[in-house]
């Protein structure tokens, strides 16, 4: 049994979670408990949210990945895990820290974005986009140039603070593919693979991580430049911005099964009232990433662009 820090919560877990920082805060009652136990075959009165997920009437969520684990997440504070295969611990944790984490956030009224985020000075930027767009690689490029990591892949937006929206830092790890590691000059030796069958690595990033909640200064929606060389960063407004933001809402289908569509829309509007959203075209070539990272750093080091 260990206590960890995740999004400012005290997480007590029977499963060892080397990705998370150990809890060093006050002696509060744990905010989230993760226990190893039995997860039922089905939830009573549940709705299907796709082939892998069921949502119960109380918005408890059941996720099953065959040959890996079953997860039951309820009340935003309790996770039961039944592992199927003790051999793939990293996989058991990957689904917990991805979809299971999103379930906790949605149950707690937080807005998870499919984005990596980095802190530059006193605020942070979120790099949003679907899988394979290069969120983690761009974040790692920024971290290499002096930014701090706030979250990789899923960034949790907190709208409860009276000030502008902030990001609750997740945990000090990045997931990078072999080609990104090579291009960032990070040695793969000694790194853990997320799954055995392919070269996607868990890269510890404790030295570059900042666990303090931080104001969200801008959201960049990563887009494929589609072969255009001079594609520029451009601000999106109105429905374009709303469309881009909701598209990058992490696990829309799950939120819909939890009847959270209206809450999500309200959260999106609230975020956009306070935070500019830009489209950032990427060429998917590593050569261009350094220049893009420099541009983002200079935009945000000298204060928020209008």
């Amino acid at each position, binding site marked *: 049994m260990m206590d960890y820090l995740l999004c400012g919560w005290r997480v007590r877990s029977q499963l060892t979670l080397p990705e998370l920082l150990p809890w060093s805060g006050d002696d509060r009652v744990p905010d989230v408990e993760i226990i190893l136990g039995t997860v039922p075959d089905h939830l009573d009165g549940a709705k*299907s*949210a*796709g*082939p*892998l*997920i069921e949502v119960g009437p109380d918005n408890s969520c059941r*996720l099953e*990945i*065959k*040959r890996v684990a079953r997860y039951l997440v309820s009340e935003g504070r309790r996770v039961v895990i039944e592992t199927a295969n003790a051999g793939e611990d990293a*996989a058991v944790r*990957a*689904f917990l820290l*991805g*979809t299971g984490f999103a379930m906790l956030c949605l149950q707690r009224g937080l807005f998870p974005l499919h984005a990596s985020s980095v802190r530059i000075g006193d605020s942070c930027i979120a790099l949003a986009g*679907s*899988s*394979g*767009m290069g969120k983690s690689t761009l974040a790692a490029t920024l971290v290499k140039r002096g930014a701090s990591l706030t979250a990789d*892949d899923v960034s949790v937006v907190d709208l409860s603070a009276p000030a502008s929206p902030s990001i609750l830092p997740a945990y000090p790890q990045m*997931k990078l*593919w*072999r*080609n*990104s590691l090579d291009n960032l000059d990070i040695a793969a030796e000694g790194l853990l693979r*997320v*799954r*055995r*069958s*392919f*070269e*996607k690595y868990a890269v510890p990033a404790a030295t570059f991580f900042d666990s303090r909640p931080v104001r969200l200064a801008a959201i960049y929606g990563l*887009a*494929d*430049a*589609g*072969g*255009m060389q001079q*594609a520029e960063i451009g601000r999106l407004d109105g429905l374009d911005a709303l469309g881009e933001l909701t598209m990058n809402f992490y*696990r*829309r*289908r*799950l939120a819909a099964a939890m009847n959270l569509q209206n809450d999500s829309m309200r959260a999106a509007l609230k975020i956009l009232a306070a935070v500019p959203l830009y489209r950032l075209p990427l*060429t*998917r*070539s590593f050569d261009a990433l350094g220049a893009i990272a420099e541009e983002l750093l200079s935009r945000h080091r000298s204060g928020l662009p209008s």
Partner: protein
Amino acid sequence: MIGIVWLASYPKSGNTWLRLALESLMAGGAPVRLNHVKQLRLGAASRSLLEEVLGVDTSDLSHEEIEELRPRCYEAIARDAKRPLFMKVHDARISTAGGEPLFPPDITSAAIYIVRDPRDVAVSYAYHSGVSIDAMIGIMANPRYVAARGVSSMSASVPQRYLSWSAHVESWLDTPDMKILLLRYEDMVRDFATELGRVAAFLGMEPSPGAIAGAVAATRFERLQEAEASEGFRELAPTAARFFRKGVAGGWRTDLSDKQVRQIESDQGVAMKRMKYA
């Protein structure tokens, strides 16, 4: 249940062209904007689509797990659909390791299969992928070829089993339980209006003659090239400079050596004969 219409082909065989034309046709023959086409969004192997349905990252799943889950995803998509859906496919029509069809027959409304002369495919696909023509000829002859394998890097698509060009053709055409329309790229180049009319009739659409003419005009090759030059095209592979390259039939006569032609004809002879390319 409203089923899925699979728009299937080996790569570089006119799939995108047909989807652009269908988009225009459904809008009465209106012009299309390359990066805003609904019919281009639903690729059966798209990671973002599958992740939306599954609720988990596909890059945390093994290839076998993804393949096993794909039929379940298409079932969920078909169940939620409020109108017939078109879905682009480059996979061969395979069965998963568990022995079930990757594209479940009971949620399939029909399939349109586009075939193109493999000698032209070799040239176009080599350019698109940034590999030599000889390497591409080898890929097209590989009976176990998997695209977007994603072992050391990730692509926007999950891994897809293309098999060889011949096996791809046969997998789709020898499917007894599927209503299928065969189109030839060469016929589309020669007389697209007639071929689009066949597609419309097959799908039970009743477009006006003006809509067909409009869709043909909206997707003329020069027009697509101009649009790509000014707006870019999101389906472009990072390995190529442009997606809409030549759009001709028979370019292989100048682009392939005699030896390369003989190799393809030897590798793909049976299916070429069946498709009347030899």
